[in-house]
């Protein structure tokens, strides 16, 4: 079965989804990512969906779940590289993913995670 690699980059985990997300793949990813966050003490997760062309409500909910679970484990999730068509589809499906951080590309997402971390270590913004 196809598996999505989870790469460790410093204190963050990088998940690049390069296959079309089937439901099983998404479920496996959710399990493995949760495990990895705990094992690696990750403080942030970058979910790169720039190669994803097709989404449905299940995948939308999955992304929301992954972000929710990560937050409980004190790791901020940033969804990066969403394509315009995918963004429109998600909005039309009524899944605007509230509360999830987004960035245009991995670079911007990394910068966002770094700045969020700086702020929270200063104790001004506990997200």
């Amino acid at each position, binding site marked *: 079965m196809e598996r999505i690699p989870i790469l460790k980059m410093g204190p963050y985990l990088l998940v690049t989804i390069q296959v079309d997300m089937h439901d099983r793949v998404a479920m496996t990813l959710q399990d493995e990512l949760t495990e990895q966050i705990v094992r690696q003490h990750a403080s942030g997760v970058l979910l790169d969906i720039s190669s994803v062309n097709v989404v449905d409500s299940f995948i939308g909910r999955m992304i929301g779940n992954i972000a929710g679970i990560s937050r409980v484990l004190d790791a901020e999730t940033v*969804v*990066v590289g*969403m*394509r*315009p068509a*995918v*963004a*429109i589809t*998600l*909005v*039309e499906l009524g899944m*605007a*993913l509230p509360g999830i951080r*987004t*960035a*245009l*590309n991995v670079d*911007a*997402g990394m910068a966002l995670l770094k700045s969020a971390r700086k702020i929270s270590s200063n104790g001004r913004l506990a997200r």
Partner: protein
Amino acid sequence: MPQKTQMASEIRNQQASILKDWVNYQLAANMLRRDLIIKEHELRDASRQFLELFVTALEESTDISTPGWKPAKEYLGELSHARAVQGFSPSETAMFILSLKQPLFDLLQRQQRDAKALAEDFWEMTVLLDRLGLHTAELYQQSRDAIIQRQQMELLELSTPVVQLWDEILALPLIGTLDSNRTQIVMESLLQRIVETSARIAIIDITGVPTVDTLVAQHLMKTVSAARLMGADCIISGIRPQIAQTIVHLGVNLQDIVTKSTLADAFHIALQRTGAAVTKVGASA
């Protein structure tokens, strides 16, 4: 059917005089647009060509759905299209074919026959010409619809520009009412530009939007949500006092979106967020 071919051959024999009568009737009709039909000989040419096709088709059948009528119908189609583009009204266009009735009826009347046969011929000819008339009107309508559709598309493309104000700052000045169709196009072009320019902030200026109701507000929210999914924050600017009142009275929730009254204010905020600042050159210390 001998009778029909007989009618066709009679018309064929008298073709020249029918044509002359027909053109005269068309010229005499007060509906004729003298300002649009510039030359009489153009009308004569069109009438002659159509009459030729008409008789050829009539020699085969009186049912206009048969393939024999195809050339005549195609010619009518071209004519209606041309007249629709020139700005003729539907009745003026239909009069072209309907005015052929009179010369044909005159022809039938000249043949001395019993009343029953005459009435039958009249009826047949009326049905035939009415069908052709309806066909003309329908084609005319189609041409007009095509023109309207094309203009709508052009308007849509013209009315949704996305401009780059600064590094990472886009502006989307909206003019006119936002319906679902336009929202879709606005959203697509905005998101496309966000990708192209790596924009972090998009300013949606609604100064040119005449009314904001719940539907328009919903469309705005959708656009903002989609841009946020792409990692760009949106600022809505150009909210006029009346519109601010309407939004609150309608109970529309714009709480999560930054709103500013003018584009300048929005631009100021956007510059601050991207870490840029505008200062006057050589300002006294």
